[in-house]
């Protein structure tokens, strides 16, 4: 049991990745699809933060802490911050596209956007 729990954070990351992809593939609404994309993205947050975690360590805020206190890794947190921005921005562009697609196609079902033929 114990090793399983020890790998739980990574397992949750893998789970969110696959579940989000399942949602995308079976989606019948563009907005639903976009939200599922954000679930895939949250998998990367969990993975990054879990990778940088150190048991018993403090957050990397150095107010009132002795100089040698172990802290969790600040690098992954910086990466996660960037990742969060990427999330909100990609969502905004995709939602704008989805709104326009709904206007043009009269539906938000990704499988019913008219296929183009050459």
């Amino acid at each position, binding site marked *: 049991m114990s090793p399983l729990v020890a790998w739980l954070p990574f397992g949750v*990351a893998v789970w969110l*990745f696959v579940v989000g*992809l399942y949602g*995308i*593939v*079976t*989606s019948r609404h*563009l907005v639903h*699809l976009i939200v599922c*994309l954000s679930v*895939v*993205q949250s*998998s*990367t947050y969990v*993975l*990054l933060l879990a*990778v*940088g975690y150190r048991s018993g360590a403090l957050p990397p805020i150095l107010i009132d802490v002795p100089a040698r206190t172990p802290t969790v*890794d600040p*690098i*992954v947190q910086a*990466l996660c911050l*960037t*990742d969060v921005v*990427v999330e909100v*921005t*990609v969502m905004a*562009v*995709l939602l704008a*596209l*989805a709104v*326009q*697609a709904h206007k*043009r*196609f009269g539906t938000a079902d*990704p*499988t019913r*956007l*008219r*296929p*183009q*033929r*050459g």
Partner: protein
Amino acid sequence: MVPPPPLPVAIPLLVAAALVAGNVRPHRRLADGTAIACALVVTALCGLLLVGSLRGPIVYWFGGWSPRQGIALGVDFAVDPLGAGLATLTSLLVSSAMVFSWRYFEEIGQLYAALMMAFLAAMVAFCLTGDLFDLFVFFELMGVAGFALAGYEVEEPGPLQGAINFAVTSTVAGFMVLTGIGLLYGRTGALNLAQIGRSLSLHPVDGLVVVALLLVTCGFLVKAAAVPFHLWLADAHAVAPTPVCILFSGVMVELGLYAVWRVYWTVFAPSLGQARAVTGLLVGVGCLTALLGAVECFRQQHLKRLLAFSTVSHAGMFLVGTALLTSSGLAGAAVYVAGHGGVKASLFLCVGILMHRFRTVDAARLKGRGAAIPVVGGIFALGGLALGGLPPFGTSLGKELIEDAASRSHLSWVAVVLTAASVLTGGAVLREAGHVFLGLGRLERRPLHEIQEPETAGPRWRTPLVMVVPAVVLLAAGLVVGVLPGFPAGVEAAARRFVDSGAYAAAVLQGRSPPRVVPAVAAVPEAGTVVLSGASAAGALLLALLSLYAPPRLRRPGPGRGRLRPAAWFGWAQSGDVTDYVAWLVLGTAVYGLVLALGLR
């Protein structure tokens, strides 16, 4: 004089911000002029960096955070000749695109120019960076600008669908890359490419390394359109505005490949070396992509879609060259990329001119009408011959170098695949040249349903000079690449530098310049492959004539139904449905992973 490496990224970013801020009182000509000037300045800066990096890699640490105690702290630009060369090609194409789009995009003021500048900065930074996470960041920046540019024509269903398919697949690909980065960081605690490579080689190769390689490679291969990750490409490239198409086809696909190999040679090569599993997998995938793209290309009558599929085919050929994991294969691909960038961009511009004059890119509606613009017809036909492999174009030189490198790796059969793909793509373009510009042939075609709205304003009875000149210049550039003496030898030297992981790491982490690489001697293609190139161009011409004049039952299969027809199978996969594409993406990644897992264990 070597300029500071941040400049070619910082200047276009600043210009992009200024253009948006100035959009309160839009002034189109001023904005376009600024953007063209900026792109030209960036071209010059990248060119100077290229020249400077011939003497040894230029390593630049942002914020002055150079490595301490052998550990890279900050973010670096590590400029080497191949990266700088690709950045130069990129900025050159952006300059041409901005000149060509003098008459485009009247309704959004300065925002188009701003998006193009941000796109330019992202692509240049992508070429120069030496940091794995920054590759991801600029991948996303390129993506976001690209989605907007692809979906620019929001009045049309096609561009919206293309942009959505592009955005969703590309974003999933980005997360795959990021997951790979997370795994690598967990093992090595580093983000600098050289540092990860060094630290990874201290461990034996295990699942983590294989899976990280898989995720990063597949993520970037989505941009590079390898089968089965190529499905989004035709949807997006066929509908983007013409000036944007030349960037998508001319460099964005190539940038995906660049990232795959930059990461492979710096991060994974110290532990994996020239892994045979990687060569086997990616040469195979490359051949499949080249053939599939070529066949699809030959079936099209929508001219932009035709060119988009030919890009898929060429991406496959580049993948073959680079996947040989030898410097000569890489050099061949680099020459090919340079030649292809010029030729393909020129072809797209010709289609843009047709669109401007006749409001359609459907070959069925264009039959014979192109006779009014014979110059454009000449450029288009020459471009078709160049794609077919006519010496001395850069495309044919690149193809010959890849074939030579393959035969040295005991994969001579690759030449057959490359030639077949060249004959098909060149033949398709030449067929349309005959059909559209000369009115030749007895093709019976039904017009396509969709009529694209015109992209341009202004009078349609003449072709503006700002449209023709870039097309001529770009085609000429594709030719110059093939005849410039010393160019292949220089590229070969650059490629050797690119694959030398040890020297790269020493330069980045210790600041040691590697010993000067003696220019390679054997950078001249063998006589046999040159003859083969000429033959493939002749074959393309023959195929074009055949398809124009052959009796109906021998001609291209129609888009009709029928379970066993390959056409039906292609159509089935190329459904235009993004949920399908993501399903294929997942399956493709799993299959690649299986092959790598079995091969690298």
